[in-house]
């Protein structure tokens, strides 16, 4: 249960970290590249809402493909790929074990990126399937699945070989996410894209997939990061493992069916069930938040540094999105916000606010540890944090508030539709464009920083006589930062 203690000597840590150096750098740099691409796509989509003729003559960038292309780039390229990097690192750290088979991991991540690239190109070429989160054309799923088998397999084998047998709560969450993902990916893409079921069952299965992906797979990795990083950064112990266990079970049982708003064309139990599930998940999040609060209560934010800010923001956004999802599933609220901008608002809060922020915090924290090279421009990271945080909040607020106005207009038949557009949609979309621009700037800076780090690590390895000797190389490089590391972290 203790992340702050360790029986390992600093040089063991260096060995563990360096086993993971290039695979992680690869995963992390590709992840931020996808974030950049996704933010460009959503920016284009957003601009199209102000001027219908913007880039109109090209079918590849029409609004209806930019939205799913952005979503898929961010979900599969950034969030899932970043999640792989983070969960592997946490698994190795908590298990005090070296990465098994870095070569396979490398092949797996290359394959994953090829899959996502083909998928996004497929969507842009007009082969999107039309099911949110599963828009990628059918032939991509097997590629993603094969890639995942390698990546997830390595994570599981590494987990299995851990030297510290006792499990820390973060490990449960990671383990469950690792098993959950291939399951929903195969079931979802088989039943929706490859051999589709008939009629509205498609919507129900689509909702199950979306919820499993967001709340369980990405959500669990996000929670694992929060529960691992916050105690570590504040040098405290997690307040109570049983509370974590409780949340773990609740979210695992009910998280697969949240957020499907009661649509009347679906059987009525679907709406009621998803409302109940959303409330359970929100409750589990409140318990989690209490646990975290008891863990880090009274710590001043400064002591944890910038990473602490990232993770703190992530936890707050995660809690807010779970609570808002539960609130939005109440029948009286759902009637208003159904079919409005509120839903993309929740999506932003969850994906960019909670998952994205957590991953960036992780990347900021562990890349220097793993490579033994500090960020060359720490000030840029402060800038990344603020632009990303402000941008994400701006988009989230614009969509959530706008969604409410949008919905109020829609349910009042006296308001002509164009008035709803003028007052409930257009101004908020304009506000969100500014936010998306900020996220784009943050992503560009991020890409630049991670890529530079990648190059510097690569060069320093070359200088030190090639990859074969990188073990020796790392320990000499990291000597300076070692004392700090061993006292502050494990």
């Amino acid at each position, binding site marked *: 249960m203790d992340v702050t203690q360790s029986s390992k000597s600093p040089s063991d840590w260096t060995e563990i970290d360096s086993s993971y150096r290039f695979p992680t750098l690869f995963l992390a740099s590709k992840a931020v590249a996808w974030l950049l691409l996704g933010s460009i796509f959503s920016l284009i989509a957003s601009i199209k809402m102000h001027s219908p003729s913007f880039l109109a003559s090209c079918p590849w960038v029409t609004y209806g493909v930019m939205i799913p292309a952005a979503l898929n780039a961010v979900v599969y390229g950034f969030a899932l790929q970043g999640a792989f990097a983070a969960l592997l690192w946490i698994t190795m750290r908590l298990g005090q074990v070296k990465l098994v088979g870095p070569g396979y991991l490398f092949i797996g991540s290359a394959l994953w990126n090829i899959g996502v690239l083909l998928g996004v190109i497929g969507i842009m070429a007009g082969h999107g399937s039309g099911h949110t989160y599963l828009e990628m054309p059918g032939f991509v799923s097997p590629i993603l699945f094969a890639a995942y088998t390698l990546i997830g397999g390595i994570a599981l084998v590494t987990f299995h070989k851990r030297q510290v047998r006792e499990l820390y709560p973060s490990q449960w969450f990671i383990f469950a996410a690792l*098993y959950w993902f291939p399951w929903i990916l195969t079931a979802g893409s088989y*039943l929706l894209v490859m051999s589709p079921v008939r009629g509205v069952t498609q919507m*129900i*299965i689509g909702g199950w997939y979306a919820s499993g992906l967001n709340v369980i797979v990405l959500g669990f990795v996000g929670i694992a990061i929060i529960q691992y990083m916050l105690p570590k950064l504040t040098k405290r112990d997690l307040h109570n493992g049983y509370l974590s266990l409780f949340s773990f079970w609740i979210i695992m049982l009910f998280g697969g069916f949240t957020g499907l708003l009661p649509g009347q064309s679906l059987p009525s139990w679907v709406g009621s069930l998803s409302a109940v599930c959303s409330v359970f998940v929100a409750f589990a999040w409140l318990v989690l938040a209490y646990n975290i609060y008891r863990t880090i209560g009274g710590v001043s934010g400064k002591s944890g540094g910038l990473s602490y800010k990232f993770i703190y923001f992530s936890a707050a956004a995660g809690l807010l999105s779970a609570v808002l999802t539960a609130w939005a599933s109440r029948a009286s609220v759902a009637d208003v916000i159904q079919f409005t901008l509120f839903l993309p608002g929740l999506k932003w809060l969850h994906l960019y606010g909670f998952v994205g922020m957590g991953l960036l915090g992780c990347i900021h924290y562990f890349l220097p540890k793993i490579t033994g090279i500090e960020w060359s421009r720490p000030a840029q990271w402060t800038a990344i944090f603020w632009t990303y945080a402000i941008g994400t909040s701006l988009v989230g607020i614009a969509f959530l508030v706008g969604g409410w106005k949008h919905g109020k207009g829609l349910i009042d038949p006296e308001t002509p539709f164009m008035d709803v557009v003028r007052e409930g949609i257009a101004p908020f979309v304009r506000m969100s464009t500014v936010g998306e621009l900020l996220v784009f700037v943050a992503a560009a800076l991020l890409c630049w920083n991670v890529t530079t780090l990648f190059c510097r690590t690569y060069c320093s390895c070359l200088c030190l006589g090639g990859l074969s000797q990188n073990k020796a190389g790392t320990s000499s490089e990291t000597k300076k930062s070692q004392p700090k590391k061993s006292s502050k972290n494990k």
Partner: protein
Amino acid sequence: MNQGPLLFLSVLCAMAASWMGFVLMPQVQLGNQSTRLVKEIGRHYPAERGGIAVKGHDVYRAAGCVSCHTQQVRQSGFIFDIVLTDAGDFTDLVTSLVQQANGDLSDQQAADIVANAPKTILEGVSKQTVDSIAFLFKDSGGKVAANIRPTGPDIDRGWGPRQTVGLDYLFDEPVLMGSQRIGPDLADVGSRLADRNWHLLHLYHPRTVVEKSIMPAYPYLFETREIGDSPSPDALALKGEFAPEEGMEVIPTPEANALVEYLLSLRIFHPVFEAPYIFTQAEPSENIDSEMEPAE
């Protein structure tokens, strides 16, 4: 929970439960839905979409219209119109009962209704009122019936005569119900906007027909070409800032025509068991013979 195998087992159980509850159950409940005979149209419903509208569905999917348009109509409840179907023999009694049912009617109006039955007595009342009026007319010789009318903001906006139900999507592949209403609902767009040219102009550039529209333009579904020997009959009638250069004309591609055909095929034009409403075939006078719920 500190053991790997225990963890594995619990994840497996949760996964199985989630799968059974959320995937298997809906599939068992809805998976073998099939077409149904609807007496109002004397045909099985739904019918598979035919002709180029099938391709239009594909264009709709590829262009991602679903990111801004839903195809599902909501309904919050029903109201009823009460109709005197048969005045019976005791016209005086029935006339006074009609006046009792609707206090706003003058003697003359009430007598008109009774003389010209079937005629509507009251509009837009609740189920309770229907019951009490049915009770009123009991044993009077006059017969009343209640016509069902769905209500709700979507229906009041004219986006459809009734709510959509699962059956409506049986042959859609993929089902594009959508979750965003940046634009109006399209489940019944073929009924309210039946003009092919309007749709073509709207797709070419929405602002040609709707001022300040924020819907994107789809010029790539059209071909701008030089006018040949004589102007093509298919050319769009574009004016002002949207007009092509001198000597050029804008022709819809087969995709655009298919898409418009698909949009015109989006119609809700008869009741189904789950979502009844008054069905108007052609003449309004036929109202009464169709979907009615006898109040007695």
